[in-house]
């Protein structure tokens, strides 16, 4: 876990970055990544565009997990539930209430924000494994609740709910998959921008102070209950948006897609990307989407084992995830530049 020293260093680095907006290596790297993300989908097959969209959706979910765990130090194995709520909320609004998707997505996020915020209250009393178990309970409870006969009219029960994939507006000639991809990318960028600003703000510093030392933070005047529940709410809200986008991408919402396993892979993505490092979310998402396929390719019968070996290799080589790799490359490039 990080120490207060880390936080101080982070703040100093952030200030230094803000002071001189020159073309530094991280900025160039972000611009290149963004350019690739915009240009590449124009030249690849629809199926790969679809996979890229899924990666982007998961990246949003992992990013929101990063806000919760990386910034406020709370732990969640239940984000699949918020993802599911977002997906169902969006699907139901679009299919049963004919609400257009540009409105349905933010409302789904808002619903998840409220649920997450409320869940934050009991979570306040719990720490470590106990919080993990409580969030885990949420993840376990979600699929059977959505399958329940009482709500079948809206949720489609076990069968799930078909969602219409939107066409590109204003007569732009883009395939549906590509359009959904750019929509996801656009929303992901907004969320990324909001998150970076959040973490660099007064509230972000309050969250990091809580992560590093609750007692010290509260004696400095940080309202623990408010900030911790708020972190839960914001994280759940962003995950809800990811869920809504996921529903639109797959054009289908089914209860069995949002099991505990999904929550665990989101968690895994966060660790692989680097806890608390927002750009890592994309790397983590790519890992949890692509590596299982890769493992399947290596050996069908042993795909689980191959996947496990990949994870172990990752955590042995890079215990701090993709963040470590990025920092290493950064240091090497700096040496070269000198």
């Amino acid at each position, binding site marked *: 876990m990080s120490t207060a020293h880390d936080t101080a260093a982070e703040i100093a680095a952030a200030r230094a970055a803000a002071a001189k907006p020159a073309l530094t290596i991280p900025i160039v790297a972000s611009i290149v990544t963004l350019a690739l993300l915009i240009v590449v989908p124009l030249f690849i097959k629809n199926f790969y565009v679809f996979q890229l969209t899924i990666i982007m959706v998961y990246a949003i979910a992992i990013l929101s997990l990063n806000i919760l765990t990386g910034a406020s130090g709370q732990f969640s194995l239940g984000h699949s539930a918020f993802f599911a709520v977002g997906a169902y909320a969006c699907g139901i609004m679009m299919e049963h209430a004919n609400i257009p998707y540009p409105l349905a997505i933010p409302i789904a996020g808002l619903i998840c924000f409220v649920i997450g915020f409320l869940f934050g209250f009991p979570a306040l009393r719990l720490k470590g494994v106990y919080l993990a178990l409580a969030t885990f309970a949420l993840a376990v409870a979600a699929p059977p609740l959505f399958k329940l006969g009482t709500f079948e009219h809206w949720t489609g029960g076990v069968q799930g709910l078909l969602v219409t994939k939107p066409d590109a507006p204003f007569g732009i000639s883009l395939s549906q998959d590509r359009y959904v991809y750019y929509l996801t990318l656009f929303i992901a960028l907004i969320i990324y921008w909001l998150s970076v600003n959040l973490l660099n703000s007064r509230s972000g510093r309050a969250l990091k102070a809580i992560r590093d030392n609750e007692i010290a933070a509260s004696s400095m005047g940080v309202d623990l209950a408010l900030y911790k529940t708020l972190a839960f709410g914001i994280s759940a809200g962003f995950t809800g948006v990811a869920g809504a986008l996921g529903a639109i991408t797959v054009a289908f919402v089914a209860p069995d897609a949002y099991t505990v396993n999904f929550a665990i892979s989101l968690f895994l993505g966060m660790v692989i990307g680097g806890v608390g490092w927002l750009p890592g979310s994309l790397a983590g998402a790519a890992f949890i989407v692509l590596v299982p396929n890769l493992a399947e390719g290596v050996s069908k019968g042993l795909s689980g084992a191959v996947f496990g*070996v990949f994870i172990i290799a990752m955590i042995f080589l890079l*215990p701090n995830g993709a963040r470590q790799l990025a920092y290493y490359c950064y240091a090497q490039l700096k040496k070269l530049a000198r």
Partner: protein
Amino acid sequence: MELFTNQVLSGIATGAIYACMALAVVMIYEAIDHLNFAQGEMAMFSTFIAWQFMQWGVPYWGAFIIAVVLSLFAGIAIERVLFRPLGHASILVHIAGFIALFAIINSVAGLIWDFTIKPFPTPFGSTPLLGGVISSHQAGMIAVTLVLLGLLYLFFRFTRIGLAMRAAATMPESARLVGVNVGWMIALGWGLAAAIGAIAGIMIAPVIFLEPNMMGGVLLYGFVGAVLGGLSSPAGAVAGGFMVGVLENLAGTYIPGVGNELKLPIALAMIVAVLVFKPNGLFGRVQVQRV
């Protein structure tokens, strides 16, 4: 009233499974201070090893002992090879390691013994007792759990190595200063947890049958039982396991609209409710933080 007693009794019978597993969970928690998500799979693998030896003609208790001893060493080996090198990496990284271990063991067991369901023998027979609510195997399982609990109590309370393990778990720095080899105590904790897991697996297998995914649900209930009872108290964990079994059964019987699907969420919701009022479990030590 008869329905009530019957449901409580059969709840205790299923609770014995959870109690068994909860004991293994507490063991590892005492040693490494967090939960091992791969513990269920380790127990499953041990059970398969016992089964394999029985297939090769080794008598029940022989296979039992072989499996438990092998698990002890395998547990130590896993700690030495996999988790010791990770050392002081954050807990989150360790959890990723557990998830990896889970995937590997599950997949390898599936490859060696395939995913068909296999019956597992019991030394206690399966005569129904008390009018059929509880079988003699379940009674035997409860007895084994209680004996195991007693042995663990004696081990931690009255042996030097048990004392050293407790010291290493609660205050590693101070324990190191008085000459306890903390690294090996943690490895031993892993070994003991694996051995208890093996016993739990062998006891549970006759009830839920043997297959690579058998432990998924059981481990979850084990966690829940252990957390409910308090992770720092073996007796509390066993009590917690029984309570989860009973609660789950009663919720299924008396709350309308709760089928098999909703039993687990309801039990979990109750436990979260308990935790909100008793954040360290019902019988756990209250954690005091020094400022």
